[in-house]
């Protein structure tokens, strides 16, 4: 299990433990983290799982694919340099302690 910290839109921090191999979205969703809708269940087709990734960890992520890139342009909240779709990021041990900020809105 890998420990992650999601920051909800209210500013509340939620610590969540999730298995390697799951996506960040699934870790948040199963635990009912506020601020992630994930309407398409992780098939990279809704952009309602948009998150901002801890700058310190951004280099440990696989680069994004072209679909994710396109979908991020459709996200409801502002796209920043550290924007990602959480359903496209597979959890790895190196993520231990990563802080993931949810945006103010997903829809």
């Amino acid at each position: 299990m890998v420990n992650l910290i999601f920051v909800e839109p209210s500013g509340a921090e939620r610590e969540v433990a999730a298995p390697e191999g799951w996506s960040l979205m699934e870790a948040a969703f199963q635990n009912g983290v506020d601020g992630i809708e994930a309407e398409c269940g992780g098939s990279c087709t809704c952009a309602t799982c948009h998150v901002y990734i801890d700058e310190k960890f951004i280099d440990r992520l696989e680069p994004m694919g072209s679909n994710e890139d396109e979908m991020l342009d459709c996200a409801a909240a502002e796209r920043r340099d550290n924007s990602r779709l959480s359903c496209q990021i597979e959890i790895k041990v190196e993520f231990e302690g990563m802080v993931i900020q949810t945006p103010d809105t997903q829809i």
Partner: protein
Amino acid sequence: MSEAGVVILGNGHAGVSVAEQLRRKKYPGAITLIGAEAGLPYQRPPLSKQYLKGEWDEARLLQRNAEFYRNNDIRLIASDSVISIDPSAHRLELKSGATLPWDKLVLATGSCLQKLEIPGADAEGVVYLQNREQADALKSEMRSARRAVVIGGGYIGLEGAAALALAGLDVTLVNRSSELLARSASLPVAHWIQRRHEKQGVVFKLGEQLAEILSADNRVRGVRLANGEVLEAELVLIGIGVKPDTGLAESIGLECADGVLVDQKGVTSHPDILAAGDCTRFNHPLYGEAIHLESIQNAVEQGKRVAATLMGEEGTYDAVPWFWSDQYEAKLQIAGIAQGHDLEVIRGDEHAERFSVFCYAQRRLVAVESINAPAEHMLARQLLKAGASPPPDDAANPEFNLRSALPS
């Protein structure tokens, strides 16, 4: 409000959405979620996708983990069914013998499977795919079978065929209509999907009826078509559709018409009984008629609307319908409802890896179907929501910026 609170009948996507939203909105009363199946509420779409292919295990299939329901004080009743409702006494009765009071009742009973009524349909090796138990049965049959026949060219049949073909089985798909996805996609999309399956070796028998399922010692060994042709198989997957589950609603005299009728707030003909998801039919402001949907989008969003109504919030349910299906690496997405359209234009090349079909009814954009074009799908949803109709020539022109058709 008494201590009975809200009781939600059905723990699928709609039921869970209602419970979750009520807590997010700080509903102070009791919430009870009842489901006939064992275990925690799980997601249905992966049953014909990641779960069937063995990529996901049971834990990953869950909607929320056990802690979520505990933390949110949502009482779960699993492996028990509601067998009767008494609307005047505000009580319901469970199969286990228990009775339960409710202040407000939400029907989220989903769909009933359509069963094939032909000789041999009860042989071993004949499977359906609507719940986890059936998916487990299909997975175990897949391991020993070499040849499969799939009955039905809708989404379940096609996704099932894709999983079977990827697992290395010889797959033949039999469909009564001469086109796949007959009621739910345009021809360019249906043809694209068919070609993709054929590339994987799936054989299609379109416009063909099934006469009989052949078996020996009650074990399936193939099917015989109405034209006499015999297809040998060790596995037969049936996906011929579902119907709204209105049994209990009808038994207490709620208004139903192939779906429990609800208003735009999600209330049935009884003021204390609401309904959401696959079991409903409702007037949609974008389409001006009573529609019935079978989708996650509708289950979740109508569930949210029902929760808002229970909290006394104003507003109506007018979300743009949308749907997705994954087959192989292809993503099909549909925004809106194409039924009754009189014009379609293609954006992109229908023989390429990605394109969209824009469907119009009387010059008004009513639906957009996209293959591998998720960003176009998202824009289509925004266009439909805004009631914006780019002229068909513009929509068909890939150089035309769809965003510019949105009201600023």
